Each structure stands twice: as C-alpha cells, then as structure tokens.
C-alpha cells in the first residue's frame, strides 16, 4: 500500500487532521494514566491485612460512666462470649483493622536517639494473634507471665513489658537484611523492648501513615479493661448468627450499655475501601466515555471525508482500483492518523504522569501502560473507520462520470 498519496491528502486537510491527531493524543494520555490509576486503586483495595478476615466479627460495647468494677465485668463479658456456640476464640483488642483511627507510637532504635526512626501502630490485648489468625513466621508468641496492665504502664512507663512482636515489613524497614529476632526497639528511652517474634502481616487500622507504612505494626503484651473491641473468630457461615448472639449476651449482662459497632471484618474492609472503589469506577467511566467520544469523532470525520471524496473514489474505481483497495486506503489513512496521535499521546501521557507525581504522590507511569493505550486506540480507530470505509468501497465507478 502506497502511503505517500495519503500523506499528501493530510496536507490538504491540515487542520482537520491535526485536530483529530490532538484528540487521539489527549485520549491516549488520559486513558494510559487512568488505567494506571485504576490498577493502583484495585491494588490498594486488595491490600493484605494479615488477619482471618472471613472468620472474624467485631463487637464494640461501651459502658456509661467510669466503672470501678470494669475488670470483673470484662471477664464476665469474655466468659459469656466464649460460651456462644460456634465461637472459636475471643479477644478484647485495643483496635481492629479497617477503622478511621489508630494507636501509633514513635519507634527509636537507641535510648539516646533524638529523632524517632518512624511511627508504628500498636496492638495489644490477650490472645490477639490466635484470635486474629495472624501468622508468626519467626520466634514465639507472648507467655502468660509477660503481660502487664495497661493502666499501670500509663502511670509508669518503666513497667512496659520488655518484649514486642513486630511485622515482617517493619523488621525489614528497621534492620534491612538482618534478622529482627533479639533486636531492641524503644517507645521511650527508659524502656528497651526486645523483638521475640515476627508476624507475616498485620495492617495498621487507619493507614494514617500512608500506604507504604501500612504494615508497620507492633504487638505488645498488655492487658486492659474498658474500651477496645471484642473480636470473635468463628466459621464464615456462622458470622451473622454469632454477631446477634454476642450482642444479646452483652446486653443481657447490662441492658444500659451501648453497642457502638457490630460488623464482620469483611464488611469493615468493604466500607474502608469504598472511596477507592468509587474512584476506580469513576475512572473506568471516564475511560469508556473518552474512548466513545473519540471513536464517534473518528466515525464522523471519516464519514465526512468519504462523502467529500466520492468523486475521487469513483475515478480510482473506474481506473481499476478494487473495493479492497479503497477499503484499505481508508483503513491505512486511519492507522496513520491514530499512530501520529499515539506518538504524541505517549509524550503527553508521560508529561501527565510527571504532573500527577508532583501533585498527587503518584508513582511514575510504568512504560508497559503505553502499549496498552496504543493498542486500544488502534483497535478503536479501525473499528470506527470500518463503517465509513465500507461505504467508500461501495461507491460505484460510474460516479466518476457524473457531475456532482
């Protein structure tokens, strides 16, 4: 196929061709970046939590006013919850994944260090790891005699238990390439804490430190009464029943208390990432709309060009060009235009990506996304031009002999 005559026609329709090239370029830039944004959101929504999400339910209960007998009542609650049929494990935990706030602590690596190395989230309570289903990859869980009372530690930080369990991600961040077991961290300079165990994952509840710090987590052996949430582990099919039974049991112990939260962890995750899913949906909508508009634009313009060139087409047909030649002519023309658009579009896409990096803390657009945009646009261009090109191919040679 000779492309020189096609390039010659571009010169005659300079502005129109330029406009469509620009449109395709802009579409390419938007689509590449939007697809990348979607992939980021989808990835975020699937972020691992390190807990047995399908088996866990959370019930948060609040007693009105300060209660001196909080500790005894806590034991009563736990006994009642353990007695529910189908409940495998119960824990009172200071925080659970997928909420809007989290307990965070500054971490120092030495007693004399001035600036904290980072801040990590803090889980505590009895039975935390077994109930959450968080997997230890190295070391051991806490021994019963290692637990301290949270209230005492608040009064005197020196009573902080000298042991801590951390996540793999935090271990790698603090001591890259080394084993974390036996290392020491400090919440405050007076109390060294030795790492005795490493868990695979355990997500920070609120992700307040950003997604990179999502797995910077510590677990310490502290007991507490009052506050926090009950986490109940059960079979996935039993969860709704267990929630109802737990609320009933807790209310039976004191009808005046308030149930502040009752949900499965699956629901908690779905709710937590709703905004990301909505954003991904919106981006998908924009991609489809922009492709549709561009596709229709190509259809409109190609139809117009075909109508304008009916006579020329007739002459070519009269001079011996086959229908296939005409069809291929318009297809090639479209291919060239789209290709110019894509070339410009890649530059634009890259520029847009740099701008997004500067303003929205986005990572750089991976090069692999550029060919995706290119292929999509080529396909859309060919699909859009097919109708008008077929109409062009159907122009009979006799048109050449008629005047307009």
């Amino acid at each position: 196929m000779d492309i020189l005559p096609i390039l010659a026609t571009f010169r005659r329709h300079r502005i129109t061709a330029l406009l469509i090239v620009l449109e395709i370029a802009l579409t390419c830039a938007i689509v590449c970046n939007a697809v990348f944004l979607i992939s980021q959101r989808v990835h975020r929504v699937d972020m691992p939590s390190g807990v047995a999400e399908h088996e866990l339910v959370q019930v948060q209960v609040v007693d009105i006013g300060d209660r001196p007998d909080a500790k005894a009542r806590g034991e009563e609650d736990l006994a009642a919850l353990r007695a529910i049929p189908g409940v495998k494990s119960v824990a009172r935990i200071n925080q659970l994944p997928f909420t809007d706030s989290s307990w965070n602590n500054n971490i120092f690596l030495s007693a004399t260090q001035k600036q904290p190395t980072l801040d990590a989230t803090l889980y505590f309570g009895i039975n935390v790891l077994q109930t959450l289903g968080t997997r230890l990859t190295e070391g051991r869980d806490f021994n019963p005699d290692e637990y301290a009372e949270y209230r005492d530690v608040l009064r005197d930080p020196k009573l902080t238990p000298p042991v801590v369990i951390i996540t793999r991600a935090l271990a790698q961040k603090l001591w890259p390439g080394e084993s974390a077991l036996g290392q020491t961290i400090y919440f405050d300079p007076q109390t060294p804490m030795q790492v005795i165990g490493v868990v695979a994952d355990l997500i920070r509840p609120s992700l307040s430190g950003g997604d990179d710090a999502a797995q910077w987590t510590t677990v310490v052996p502290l007991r507490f009464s009052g506050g926090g949430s009950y986490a109940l582990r059960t079979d996935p099919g039993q969860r709704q029943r267990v929630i109802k039974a737990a609320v009933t049991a807790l209310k039976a112990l004191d009808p005046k208390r308030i149930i502040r939260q009752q949900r499965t962890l699956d629901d908690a995750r779905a709710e937590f990432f709703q905004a990301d899913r909505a954003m991904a949906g919106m981006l998908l909508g924009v991609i489809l709309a922009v492709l549709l508009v561009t596709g229709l634009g190509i259809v409109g313009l190609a139809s117009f060009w075909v109508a304008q060139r009916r006579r020329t087409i007739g002459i070519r047909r009269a001079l011996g060009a086959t229908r296939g030649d005409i069809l291929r002519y318009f297809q090639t023309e479209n291919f060239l235009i789209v290709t110019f658009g894509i070339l410009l579009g890649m530059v634009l896409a890259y520029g847009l990506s740099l701008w997004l990096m500067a303003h929205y803390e986005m990572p750089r657009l991976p090069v692999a996304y550029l060919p995706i945009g290119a292929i999509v646009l080529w396909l859309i261009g060919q699909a859009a031009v097919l109708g008008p090109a077929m109409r062009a191919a159907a122009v009979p040679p006799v048109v050449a002999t008629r005047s307009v």
Partner: protein
Amino acid sequence: MFAYYLDLALHSLKRNKILTALMVVAIAVGIGASMTTFTVLHVLSGDPLPGKSGKLYYPQIDPQDARGMMPGTLPPEQVTLIDGMNLLRAKRADRQALMFGGAVPIRPDSSALDPFYVEARYTSADFFAMFDAPFLYGHGWTGADDEARARDVVITRKLDDKLFNGADSVGHTMQIGGNTFRIVGVLDDWRPNPHFYDLNTGSYNYFEQVFLPLQTALELHFEHNGSNDCWGNGTGGAGGIYPSASCVWLQFWVELDNPAKAAAYQQFLVHYSEEQKALGRFQRAPNVRLDNLMQWLDYNGVVPSDVRLQAWLAFGFLLVCMLNTVGLMLAKFLRRSGELSVRRALGASRRALFAQLLTESGVIGIAGGAGGLLLALLGLWMVRHRPSDYAALAHLDPAMLLVTFALALGASLLAGMLPAWRACNVAPALQLKSN
C-alpha cells in the same frame, strides 16, 4: 437578522442529523462530567462562614522541647491544655474559644429509647457568638459558668426533636454520661461545612449534637476524640484519661475584627512564647502562625485530593470533547463552502457569514448545555449516593447552573470560531467555478 440565522442554523442542523447529534452529545457529555466534578469541588472548597471567616483566626505556637528541633519547622496544629487555658484567660482577642471534641452517652428519660452516643464539643462561652451559631431557644453559657464548671449544655434541634419532640427544652435536665445537665440553649440547624473548627474529626458532614463547657468535660473525664501529638515522654495526663502536658490536642480560635488587631495578636503570641521560654516551659525560639479561617483550610488541604483529581480528569475529558466538536464542525462548515460562496457572491459580508456560522455552533452549544445539565444532575445524584462523607453536599447551586450554560456556550462558540473563520475565508469565485 438573528432570527434568519437561527432559521438557517436549524435547517442546516436538521440536514445532517447524525453529525449534529454527535456534536451535541460530545458537548453534553463533556459539560456534564465537568460540571459534576466542578460542583463537588466548588461545594467542598466553599466558605463555611461567609462574611465572618475573614475575622476568625487560628493561632499556632510551638511548645515542643528542643529535641529534634529543625529550623523552619512549622508549629504544631493544636495547643496544649495549659497554653490553651492561658491564651483563653488572657482575653487578648475580641472573642476566643478553646475546644476539643468527643462523644458522650445519653440516657433518655423515656424508657422507650435506648441509651445512645452523640458527638459532643467541649468548648468555652464565646464559641456560639464567634461562629454565628443560631439559637432556636435560650442562649449559650457564660464565661463565669466556664470557670464554675457548670453542668450546662446546649443541644441541637435534632437532639431536641429526639428527646423532647421539638418542644422548648430550655431549663429541662438531661443525663449525659451519668451526670445531670441543665439545658440552657437549643441550636437551630447549623452545619458549617467543612467542619473548620476541628478538622481532626473528619472535614465534612460531621456535626456535634451536644455542646458543653470545656472545664466541666475535663472534670467529668468525658471521652476525647481527635488527634494528639506528643513529645518527650507524653505520659501522665489528667487522670490518665487525657493527653499529658507535653501533648497538643485542643483547638483554639480567636476573633479579631480588623487586620491591625490581627497583627497585634500575632505580636502577643510572640511575647507569650518568649515569656514561656523565660519561665522554662518553652525551649524553642518563638515560632508562631496566625492564619485566618480560609488560609487555615487551605493550609490543611481540606479538599480531598481525589476530588481535585476528578475535576482535572473531567476537564481533560471536556478538552477531548471540544477537540472532537471543532473537528466535526470544521468538516461540516467546509463542506458547505459551495453554499457559503453563493451567499458571498450575492453580497453577504464575511462578518455576516461568520455570525451565521457562529449562530449555528451556538445552537449546538445550547442544546449541549441542556444535555450537559441533565447529565450533571444525574452525575451529582450518583455522587450523592456514593459513600463519601461529603456525598450529601453535592447539589447544583444557581451559580454553577449559570456556569454550566456559560461553559457550554463558550465551549461551542470557541469550537465554532476556527471552523467558521476558515469557512468564510473561502474565495467565492474559486469555489463557485469548481462546482
């Protein structure tokens, strides 16, 4: 003349229905998407207290210890309890209020209602006058009540409806966290958006239903919700319940009627910092800021970045739609070179042809704008049904309605400009001859 152009435009548009529809749809979709996102952006970056916001200021001072100090660091975004009380009692501004947020359990008298939690704000007497909070019944408490730790409470209309069926409840008592409080005022609907005076609780659609004196709440150990930043060993706060003296966790606002007073107040903050340093409480050189309300919102980047990103995306989309329309119009107008040449040859001026073609693109713009408006309404309806905290705020206001049409008309006229100019520059003789 305009009527004639309009007639011509409608004729020409009817002759090529598909192309016309394509152009209208492209404009409508572009405008619809842009207006949806711009409206959300517009609503979210609005002024929560129009007319008053310029007089409200958020003082920041730096009480942190010398450890980890770096030059150029910004002061903390909240105040400690000690500094807050000092500044409150200094009364150096026209009005001032210290506050923090939380939630309190309420036990209704009627046994038909279960106990429930509501969001609460613990603050000082000037709060209501400073922020123009409208009272339905009664009034706020006084500065003397603050110091006396009075069991006074101001509730919202919503809570009044729930507990007292909307009757004037001033003078009645209610049970908050196991304590008896006297209702002194009922606020009418008051929903400043964003929730500017405390951004830690979520910026949008967060409304307290109970307001009570700060010192009363501290005495009764009412629950604190919000953020606290500590330094040193941040332990040992009041009763083991609240953050310690080396933590910032309260918000302090002042009202200053003119810029001169604001400058003087900033000077006061510097003096206060120096004085505290001399006393040994502060270790750093005075590091103060005094933003007014809108500057403070801006400083905190209140508008979610997703919303801004969506607005840019929609704008890019509108650009694609416009390019599309320019291309189609160019094709269409150039195709009518013959007709235009005849009109030129018959004596129509270039300007007349230009006006005629722009009328045609204007008609497309109006149609596109109408379609865009419908799409924007649909888009906003979809936004309202999204789970974000600002969802309920997404409504088209008259200003944005006008902007929609102005944008649609402007976009289509702009899109028609180049094609029209090209089309009426066709040399009539040449065009007529070739036909």
